């Protein structure tokens, strides 16, 4: 246990330079963005004086290093700054939007895993057969389409033409009220409140965007599952298990699959951060009030604080995600943190 926690602590320490790097790069990147926020926010019919005044009030008249120091100083006090375009603290804004993105991303990943993992296992148990090839073609097709395109096509078919799907209006149709906010995840909050009607409403809204994202993530997960299962099935311990007379279910899941899980979990982590990026586009199509669409808006209007806050939040999420992966690693693999791994 001590070994695991020291390995985990090590991971946390390693994250620090990453976070510093992210802070610096995001600062530089935002300053490199074209456009003058002062002009943008001085609004229509602004005079040069009013533009200068806005610039001063945003602190953009100071030299860059000073701006950076102020930014870092605020950051250390937990202040992500204020978004100029929404006029609200970036932290509040992110906190209110992050659950929406996470709910979408996680649902998509769960959906994707539910399909891709069994597919991968199926393909691995029958390598080289037409089932294997079919799986390969199917999942590759999913990853070959731009997400925004898939999203619009799904809306067109399932909402516009067939009328099965609910109107693509974000997280909840307006006939429902938001569930009382506890976690920010509508499905969880509605379930806690016991409001199953709202729960169902939120679920309906999730189906199309989650499917769009899931289609995109099938391929890496299925491929990795297949590869990992293949090598696990070829391992000596599987032969030992079979020779000891263990049942096929036990051999496949208790022995091969659990070992194959390690690389799959790693892939999941990568896919997760990938999907968070892809969210940007899907959120736009489905009017999903997540942080992806927030970032795009902010980027377009050069809203420095918002972009920086977004990037930092994502980086933190990434670090946490890696810790979670390590944690699941250490749960799955007893060798975690030792030199034999």
């Amino acid at each position: 246990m001590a070994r695991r926690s020291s390995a985990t602590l090590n991971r946390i320490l390693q994250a620090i330079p990453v976070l510093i790097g992210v802070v610096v790069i995001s600062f530089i990147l935002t300053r490199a963005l074209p456009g003058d926020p002062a002009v943008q926010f001085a609004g229509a019919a602004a005079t040069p004086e009013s533009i200068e005044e806005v610039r001063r009030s945003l602190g953009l008249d100071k030299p860059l290093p000073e701006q950076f120091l102020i930014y870092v100083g605020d950051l250390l006090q937990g202040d992500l700054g204020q978004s100029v375009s929404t006029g609200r603290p970036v932290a509040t804004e992110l906190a209110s939007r992050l659950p929406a993105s996470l709910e979408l991303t996680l649902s998509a990943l769960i959906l994707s895993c539910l399909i891709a993992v069994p597919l991968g296992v199926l393909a691995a148990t029958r390598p080289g057969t037409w089932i294997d090839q079919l799986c390969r073609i199917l999942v590759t097709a999913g990853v070959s389409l731009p997400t925004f395109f898939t999203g619009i096509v799904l809306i067109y078919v399932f909402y516009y033409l067939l009328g099965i799907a609910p109107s693509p209006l974000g997280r909840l149709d307006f006939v429902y009220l938001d569930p009382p906010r506890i976690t920010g995840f509508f499905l969880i909050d509605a379930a806690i409140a016991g409001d199953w009607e709202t729960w169902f409403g939120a679920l309906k809204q999730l189906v199309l965007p989650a499917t769009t994202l899931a289609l995109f993530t099938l391929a890496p997960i299925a491929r990795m599952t297949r590869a990992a299962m293949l090598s696990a099935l070829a391992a000596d311990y599987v032969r030992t298990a079979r020779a000891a007379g263990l049942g096929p279910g036990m051999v496949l899941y208790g022995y091969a699959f659990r070992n194959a899980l390690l690389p799959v979990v790693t892939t999941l982590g990568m896919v997760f951060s990938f999907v968070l990026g892809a969210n940007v586009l899907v959120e736009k199509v489905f009017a999903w009030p997540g942080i992806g669409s927030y970032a795009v808006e902010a980027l377009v209007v050069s809203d420095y604080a918002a972009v920086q806050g977004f990037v930092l939040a994502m980086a933190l999420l990434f670090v946490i995600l890696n810790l979670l992966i390590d944690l699941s690693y250490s749960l799955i693999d007893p060798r975690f943190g030792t030199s034999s791994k």
Partner: protein
Amino acid sequence: MLTIKDLKVAFKTRRGDVQAVKGISFDLAKGERLGIVGESGSGKSVTSYALMRILDAGGRIKSGEAVYDGIDLKQAAERDMREIRGREISMIFQNPRAALNPIRKVGHQLEDVLRQHGRATRQNAKAKAIEALEAVKINEAAERYEAYPFELSGGMCQRVVIAIALACDPKLLIADEPTTGLDITTQKAVMDLVDDLVRAREMSSILITHDLGLASEYCDRIVVMKDGVIVEEGRPADLFSNPRHAYTRKLVDATPRRGASIRSLLPEDQRAPLAARTIGNSPMMEVVNLTKTYQGKSGPVYAVKGISFTIREGESVGLVGESGCGKSTTSSMIVRLLDPTSGHLLFRGEDIAKLPSENFSRHPLRQKIQMVFQDATDSLNPRHTARQSIAEPLKRLTGLKGAHLGERVEELAALTGLPSHLLDRFPHQLSGGQKARVGIARAIAPDPDLLILDEPTAALDVSIQAVVLNLLADLRARLGMSYLFVSHDLNVVRLLCDHVVVMKGGKVVEAGAVETVMDTPQNPYTRELLTAAPQAPARKTAA
């Protein structure tokens, strides 16, 4: 109890069907200990997998019969086979660490088997599992129950594998090379344990091995396999002392044993007399107080703790010891791939230990000190053909080019007995013996004076080992090189070396002329090594 008749097994592969087992027949009586010997690829493992019906995908029993205790193993339903596996027939495999699920506690793996066969319930599974661990004489069995395979030594892992195999009291145990990868002393302990258990439970056993010594020591009857067929069978004493089939003879001859000469390992018709060689008196390489300390994660690892010995001009020195004693570390330092922590390496009086290993590749002496690696497969670049591999040192160290280079490569191939049409093959297209030859040709290409051989035959079959050892002996005589021959097999060292250095735990425990050390070992460790090695049978007619 087990009857096999004309069993044929074939695999479907990219290049059509491969006949792995081409119709073999044998019987096994209750309580009998059968040995199956033969070279790599002769179909030993496939036979046993076929019996258990655990062949890889694409493998299938084409014809023949395999009847165990009245049950037709070929026809039995998969469900019935599952009952047989583990409960009636069970198996242990080579490389015990890989044979265990790395992420499951060994106790639980035992329980899986016990509960699968209804030998234990949820409540008493743990107790039974500990019992099974105790049966294989693992000390502190209750604690080991909680251990993961990576927390156990190789020997202990093999004990766990044996415990799993024997957990449900099978009537037949098949052991497929159960001791490869284990130290010679561990090997003895494991084999003794298996033997005791098999006898105590009055089980039958099949021991699959390529080590004739092991087979003759632990089996009542032996079958010899070659290319998927059985060429001979009999009691060990008869079979080995009086082999009838040429192949058996070759196998017996090739096994190093006390009193044999290096040429006697070869088939009789190939025993050309060895050319004479001279051993000079002047030291070529003096190893003085060499130490190496690694900076490990949990403190320093003292791999080599101050060793000294001398290799004279033309002399062959053997370096023996068990796994992890520092043999490879020592040889890496001598060949200047690794910087010693302290000590001197005097090559003809010049201290080459001072030259950093990074720059040594451009030093003129690089050409003079070369090495043959333990694992021929690993030591050949998979993307280079044999020709490219051999040409590499010539191009870099001797500056040969164009036609001269080609000629020299062909010459080296001829010298090492490598047919020239193989030169354009990639390593994976070559057999183990051929790869070993490429490795040797490459090492002698720049005309070295000192050749370090780090267990060059460890991965080879005995008959190929015999050929390679003879090749080395011939080359030594022809080219006048000195050898530092690293090995864990004293019998092999005896054949090739003039002088031997025995290492243990990074220190030299004994050194001296080969005969002296082998015949009158002074150090208890040396004695232990000598007794642990299974004694290969000698042919009556052996030269």
